């Protein structure tokens, strides 16, 4: 048990003083690129045991990807009443970091495995692909008026898209190493706008590792830190660049998009391989800016950690993908 275990035990004493919870196991969950996650097993005074997931911010100034834990906690609180999609039950939130060392959400640990792992084991990935698509189609159908007021609500689709493209102009101005590529890509994106669709809830890290499936019950969608209101096709575009295999979009793009259109009612003109490509560029804007910001911080007194130089290659990868999309769709 590392230092987080005793901290969590003191936190439980503060939020559930009568139950006298003892942390009997606490282990870090490796593999994430943004939050610090741990799994902790707790034995209460009455002998009942429960397992929790702790999801907190990395120490200030470290890491590459940043997000607002207050906003994520609030969204997780709002989603059960807003959508048919199931999410992990939030049990407590250390909103000050006073107890757990940084702002941290404590959730029930579901007896489930990632859909990605299930896909890797499956002989026939068709049903699991459909589950993945239907789950995210349901995310995208979430009524926007039920989402937290603090979440930015763009007035309309065109304003939203123009805002993202203006953001790319700003990023190019701040990061001269990327400016030539971003200048070209942004001009191209402004001159090749696809047909609009209704704005929706975008998960922001759409891939099957963020869907948990268990022996019973609906799938759980996790990791909402990059969620926003935007164009739902951003999630599809984002998933196309996931290197984790199997990637069920590339297994059969037409089948994937047929299913998504059927689930959402969107048309072939709105959802096709070209529009998905386009929205990879749009959907990556925030993450690309964070990659560039972290790269610019390398060498500063407060270094962002090894992930920042490691992910410089991801910046080059984005440049390559974006230009290839411009070529394919021109």
């Amino acid at each position, binding site marked *: 048990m590392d230092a987080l275990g005793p901290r969590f035990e003191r936190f439980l004493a503060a939020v559930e003083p009568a139950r006298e919870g003892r942390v009997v196991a606490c282990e870090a969950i490796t593999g*994430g690129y943004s939050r610090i996650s741990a799994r902790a097993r707790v034995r209460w005074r009455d002998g009942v045991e429960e397992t929790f997931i702790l999801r907190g911010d990395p120490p200030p100034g470290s890491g590459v990807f940043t997000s607002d834990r207050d906003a994520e906690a609030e969204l997780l609180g709002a989603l059960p009443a807003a959508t048919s999609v199931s999410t992990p039950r939030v049990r407590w939130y250390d909103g000050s970091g006073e107890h757990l060392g940084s702002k941290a959400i404590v959730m029930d640990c579901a007896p489930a495995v990632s859909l990605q792992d299930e896909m890797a084991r499956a002989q026939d990935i068709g049903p699991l692909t459909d589950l993945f698509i239907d789950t995210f189609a349901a995310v995208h159908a979430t009524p926007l008026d039920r989402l937290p007021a603090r979440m930015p609500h763009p007035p309309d689709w065109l304003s939203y898209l123009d805002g993202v493209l203006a953001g790319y102009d700003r990023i190019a101005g701040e990061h001269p190493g990327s400016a030539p590529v971003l200048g070209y890509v942004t001009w191209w994106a402004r001159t090749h706008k696809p047909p609009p669709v209704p704005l929706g809830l975008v998960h922001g890290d759409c891939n099957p590792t963020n869907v948990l499936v268990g022996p019973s019950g609906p799938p759980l969608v996790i990791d909402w830190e990059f969620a926003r209101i935007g164009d739902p096709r951003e999630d599809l575009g984002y998933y196309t660049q996931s290197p984790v295999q199997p990637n069920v979009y590339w297994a059969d793009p037409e089948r994937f998009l047929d299913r998504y259109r059927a689930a959402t009612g969107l048309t072939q003109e709105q959802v096709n391989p070209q529009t998905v490509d386009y929205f990879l560029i749009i959907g990556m804007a925030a993450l690309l800016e964070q990659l560039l910001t972290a790269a610019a911080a390398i060498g500063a007194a407060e270094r962002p950690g*090894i992930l920042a130089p490691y992910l410089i290659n991801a910046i080059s990868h984005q440049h390559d993908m974006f230009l290839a999309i411009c070529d394919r769709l021109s």
Partner: protein
Amino acid sequence: MITRPTTDALIVDCCRELTDAILPGLTDETLRLRLVMTETVLRNAAVRAAHEIAWMREETAALVAYAAAVAARHPSEPLRAAMTTVEASAAASLHLADVVDRYEKAGQAFEKALTAAQGAGSADLIAQARELLRDRVEIEKRVMATYTIVGR
């Protein structure tokens, strides 16, 4: 100075030490992951150390030539100012900081030139810009070497 082994050879040797001697002795999964990432960064740095000054100077010349070609057909004040800034930078210096500075300024002039070409609807100049960007990304891919995503 001691010329051999060259900087890239020294870095690659460190990579071998990390991979062959240190990694097998690590049992902590998080530390193993960080070491693999570190080795990737070093391997990329070795490629850069061997070529980056030459690559940036070659591309700087191409970017400046493009900006001049656009300026001749579609003059604009932002482009003229950006080109003046490039001309004022240290063209002869081979010190890395100077080469990077001039390369970034050439990139900004290129961007202003591209904006002018796009504004004028000059398809041939826009296509030329795309070719320059293709070359730039090819260099970036050479630096990436054997990069694969780990830890996700």
